[in-house]
């Protein structure tokens, strides 16, 4: 359609401006209706899971509802139940398993450098006003322990050796 319009435009210069404007309007309209759809989707999921709607900083700052929390863990996601977990859930699940997040231990600078690396090389979006609460959450809940130069052998499952 765009091609046809362009061809037409080159034939009749007077019409070109008008056509382009019409096209732009069309594009804009479809953008808007798309956004409307997304909004609908959002509302639909929000009914089954209220946290899903929490993409405003204030709403996301809330800790998860008690019914979803066992031993300090938000059961549906496995994230530590703390303010800001929703932002991590919403921004960090679309490319990879949340295990990558949950298995990492880093300082605030360490988390920031992973986020910057993903933005520079892996297509992670600008987190905008959510960046600070996300970093606060990660640095607070997934901070490194000092393991020294070598850890004790832990989590050994003892068994009787039969030879």
């Amino acid at each position: 359609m765009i091609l046809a319009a362009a061809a037409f435009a080159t034939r009749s210069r007077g019409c070109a401006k008008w056509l382009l404007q019409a096209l732009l309007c069309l594009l804009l309209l479809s953008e808007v209706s798309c956004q409307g759809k997304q909004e609908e989707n959002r509302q639909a999921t929000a009914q089954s899971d209220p946290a899903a709607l929490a993409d405003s900083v204030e709403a996301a700052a809330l800790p998860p509802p008690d019914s979803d929390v066992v031993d300090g863990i938000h059961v549906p996601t496995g994230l530590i139940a703390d303010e800001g977990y929703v932002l991590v859930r919403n921004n960090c699940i679309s490319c990879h398993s949340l295990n990558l997040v949950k298995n990492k231990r880093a300082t605030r600078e360490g988390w920031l450098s992973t986020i910057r690396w993903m933005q520079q090389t892996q297509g992670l979006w600008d987190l905008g006003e959510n960046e600070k609460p996300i970093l606060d959450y990660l640095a607070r809940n997934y901070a490194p322990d000092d393991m020294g130069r070598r850890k004790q052998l832990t989590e050994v499952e003892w068994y009787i050796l039969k030879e």
Partner: protein
Amino acid sequence: MEYRMQQTPPNQDKADHTPDATGRRTFLAKGLLGTLALALGGSAVNLKSLQAAAQSGSLKPAAFSMQGKHPDLVVLSDRPWNVETPPHLLDDRVTPTDRVFIRNNGLPPGKVDAASWTLTIEGESARTKKVFTLAELQSKFKHYTYQLQLECGGNGRAEFSPPGKGNQWGNGAVYCSEWTGVRVKDVLEAAGIKPDAVYVAYYGKDVHLSGDTSKVPISRGVPIKKALEDESLIAWAINGKAIPEMHGYPLRVVFGGWPASASGKWVDRIVVRNKVHDGPKMNKGSYMVPARPIPPGAPAPDDKDMRIIESMPVRSLITYPKTGAIVKGKKTLQVRGHAWAGDLEVKEIHVSTDFGATWQKCELEKPVNRLAWQHWKTQVKFPSTGYFEVWARATDTAGASQPMVVPAWNPGGYLNNACHRIAIQIA
């Protein structure tokens, strides 16, 4: 941090630092959106729409299955698949395919038609561009079979403090299976190699994790000299059978002794470069360590002050017995395992039962071919009942041996070849 593959999904992650009563992690993530990208069809996925879907919470977990892998492998992540093998499951001389660890950087290509698969050879330093079907590769070139050890550059990362970036591997991101294919050098020579060739790199058909088809998840390679070695293969079979999907079906490259990320999967293009390859994960510290050592936790140097990891360092595993053995009624124990040393060979291996105070030399076999791991065994005696550890320390032909503590800290947490330890009780 991990879950066992045999466990049924309570669909929860008890967070890595709260292991349950057995000390295991009992969650089994249901798998996030599994193959969203593929479900959306072959067209490029727009990151904006992905972001919107993610933020609306409309991405729902999908079930997954683990394609015939051994049920005791440990899943670090299911998207991408990162799955490690506990050392005692690596006891076989040649690693069975169901015990091979998985490190994927993107999503496997999905449905593959091997009959129409082609491999293109091109690049600035290839004299001509050549395209081979799989059948042509198999009929035009001589076949070779080698046992080749492949180890993730980040094997052992979980021991670094402060933690290194990336998957927190224990000791099991290594194996030695038997590969069959054609030599990289025979195929490159068919296209012709210009004298200015510097690097040989792969591109594969895996899909970036974001589903964005314009992004390449990983494209690495090796210097021309390594590529032209006899054991460098373009392979279609592992342990005598077609390569499983997770490991690169139908075609991959195998460069034994180097970080396994150099051995690309689902390969459909090999480029001969006139400079060090610059594909994704050849930069920004990926598979690199500081050229000059830095203190633990120091900021990552720029790439110009880093070196790309080449041959992996000397290392060994105790694959028998499994850690945690309680020995009753005797004070002796047979121990055995494997040892390897990147491009080099292992010259000797020692074990200690007194926390490194004294060392006893083990029987060590020669490798069946260059770049295969070597098998070792010995019998140890304990002076009394009590808690002991067996430590294994290999030494390579250049005289380098495994450190007993974690070696030079680096931001990516690569190259931890500290000696392997198992816990024993003499009752």
